[in-house]
C-alpha cells in the first residue's frame, strides 16, 4: 500500500514538473545543442542567462521584469485592500444590494478579457493611458478584484466574530478587540488572497500584449512573445527559456512556502454550495 503511494507520488511529480525541467535544461543549452533534439544539453552553458541579464536582451528582459513586478504588486495591493473592505462588509453587515455586489463580481470574473481589449485599446489611446503602468493596473483590477472578493468573503465568514465581543466584555476597547482578536485571524486569509491575486496579474498576457507597445509598460509574458534573439539568424529559444526560468523561480518559491495556505484559499473560495 505504501509502495503504491510512492509510485503514484513519483508519477504525479514527473507529470507536474517535467515541462518545467524541460525548459530548465533548454535554458542551459548552447546554440549548437538547441537543434540536436535531445533532452539534456551536451555541455551545460550559462550563456543564455548572461544574454538576458547582461547581454543583448538585457534591456528588453529587465525592464519587462521591472514592469511586471511593479504593475502586479500595485494591482494586487489595490485589489486586496478594496476586496478586504468589501468582503468584510459582506461577511459582517446586512445591507441591501449585498447579493448584487457578489453577483457583479461573479459576472466580472466570467468576462472574456478579449472583449474588453478593443474598447480599452481605443479609450486608452484617447486619454493617454495606452502603454502606461496605470493603463494595465486598471484592467488588472478586473481580473484580481472578483476572485479576491469571493475568496475573502468565504474566509471571513468562517471567522468567529463573537470573539471580538468577548474580548470587549473582558475590557478591551472595540479597536483593541478588533486589532488583537480579528486581525490575527483574518491576516492569513488576506495574505493567501494576495498571493492568488498576484499569480493572476503576473500571468496576464492578453492585456500585456494589447495595451502596450514599448518597454514603458510591456510585461514579461508579452516581452517573451517579442523576444527575437541576439541576431536575426539565431533562434531565441535559449534566451526565452532562461527568461522563463527566471520568472518562474519566484512563483515556485511562493508555492513551496505557502502551499498550505494557497490550497486553503483556493478551496474555500467557490465550493460552499
Amino acid at each position, binding site marked *: 500500500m505504501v509502495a503504491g*503511494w510512492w509510485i503514484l*507520488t513519483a508519477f504525479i511529480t514527473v*507529470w*507536474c514538473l517535467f*515541462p*518545467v525541467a*524541460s*525548459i530548465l535544461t533548454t535554458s542551459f543549452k548552447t546554440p549548437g545543442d*538547441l*537543434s540536436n*533534439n*535531445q*533532452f539534456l544539453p551536451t555541455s551545460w552553458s550559462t550563456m543564455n542567462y548572461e544574454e538576458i541579464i547582461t547581454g543583448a536582451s538585457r534591456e528588453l528582459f529587465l525592464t519587462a521584469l521591472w514592469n511586471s513586478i511593479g504593475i502586479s504588486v500595485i494591482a494586487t495591493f489595490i485589489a486586496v485592500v478594496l476586496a478586504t473592505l*468589501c468582503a468584510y*462588509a459582506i461577511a459582517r*453587515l*446586512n445591507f*441591501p*444590494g449585498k*447579493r*448584487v*455586489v457578489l453577483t457583479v463580481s*461573479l459576472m*466580472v470574473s466570467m*468576462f*472574456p*478579457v478579449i*472583449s*474588453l*481589449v*478593443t*474598447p480599452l*485599446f481605443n*479609450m486608452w489611446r484617447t486619454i493617454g493611458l495606452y502603454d502606461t503602468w496605470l493603463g494595465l493596473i486598471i484592467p488588472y*483590477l*478586473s481580473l484580481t*478584484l472578483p476572485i479576491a472578493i*469571493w475568496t475573502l*468573503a468565504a474566509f471571513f465568514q468562517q471567522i468567529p466574530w463573537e470573539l471580538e465581543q468577548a474580548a470587549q466584555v473582558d475590557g478591551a476597547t472595540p479597536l483593541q478587540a478588533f486589532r488583537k482578536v480579528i486581525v490575527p485571524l483574518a491576516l492569513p486569509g488576506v495574505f493567501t488572497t494576495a498571493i492568488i491575486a498576484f499569480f493572476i496579474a503576473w*500571468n496576464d*498576457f492578453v492585456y500585456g*500584449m*494589447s495595451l502596450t507597445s514599448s518597454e514603458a509598460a510591456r510585461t514579461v*509574458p508579452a516581452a517573451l512573445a517579442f523576444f527575437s534573439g541576439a541576431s536575426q539568424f539565431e*533562434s531565441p*529559444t535559449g534566451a526565452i*527559456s532562461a527568461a*522563463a526560468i527566471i520568472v*518562474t523561480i519566484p*512563483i515556485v518559491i511562493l*508555492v*513551496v512556502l505557502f502551499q*498550505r495556505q*494557497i*490550497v486553503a484559499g483556493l*478551496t474555500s473560495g*467557490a*465550493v*460552499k*454550495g
Partner: protein
Amino acid sequence: MTTESTAQPAASRKKSVRPVKSKRTKAEARLGWWLAGPAFFIMIAVIFYPLMQALWDSLFSYRLTAPDDREFVGLSNYLTILTDSVWWSGFAVTVLITVVTVAVELVLGFALALVMHKAITSTRGFVRTVILVPYGIVTVVSAYAWYYMFSIDSGYMNNWMGWVPGVDSDLNWFAQAGSALTVIMLSEIWKTTPFISLLLLAGLAQVPEELSEAAAVDGATWRQRLWKVILPNMKAAIMVAVLFRALDAFRIFDAVFIMTNGDYGTEVLSLLAYRTSIVRLEIGLGSAVSVLLFLCVALLAFIAVKVFKVDLARGQGGKS
C-alpha cells in the same frame, strides 16, 4: 435585486415597531456600501463602460487606418462575421478545446484530488506543492515549454517517440491541424488540472466520512461507493469546477498565440477578436467579434447556472 425587495418591507416593518433598530439598520447599510462600494464601482467601471463602448463601436464601419471614415452601418458588421466561415470554424475549434480539456481535466483532477485527500501524511505536503506548480506557472511559459518539447527543430518528443515502433517520428506537430490542437490542449490540461483538483478536494472534504464508511460496512464495493455516495455528495463542487473551467477554456488565447498563432486550424475566437481589432485595426468589425464572444460566454454561464441549478451566491450571503 431580490435582497433589496425583500429587505425593504422588513426594514419598514421594523421602523414602525422599533425605530431605534431601524436607525442602526440604516447606519449599517450605509457603512456596508461605504466599504463595498469602491470595489463594486471599479468593477462596474472596468467592465461595463468598455462593454457599452464595444457595443457602440460594433455598429460602425470604423478602422484605425482610416479613422475619418467612421460611418454608422447598423448590424452589418455582425452579418459580415456570421456569414464568414472563419467565425464558424473558430467557434467549432473553441468548443472542441473547451469540451475536450474540461472532460479530461475533470477525470484527471478527480484522481489527483483523491490522491491529495487520501495521501499518507508523509507525502501530502509534497504532493500538494508539486500539483500547485503548474497552476502557478505563467501560461506563456507553459506554452513555450510544450512548444519546445514537440517542436521539430528543438524538441525531443519525436526523438523519443522514434523508440516506439510504428510511430511517425518525423511528424511536424505544429504544421497540422490535429496534432497542433493536441499539443495546445495538452498544455492547457497540464496547466489547469490543479485548479480543478483543488476545487474537487474541497468537495471531497465535504463528503461525510460516516456515509462512505457505512456503505463499506454494508458491503458496497469501492465503485458503488464512488457512484452512489461520493460523487452525488460533491455535485456542487463538480459543477462549480466545470463551470469555471469551461468559461476559462472558452476564452483560450495565450497557448494558441504562442504555439501556432492561430494557423493550421487552431484559430480560436479570442484570437480572431485580437487579430481583427488590434492587428488589423478594424475596430468596428473587431468590436462586433468581441461582443459576439461575450454573448457566447454569457450564454454558456447562463445555461450552466440554469442546468446545474447551482446558486453560486448561496452560502456567501452571510446572515441574510
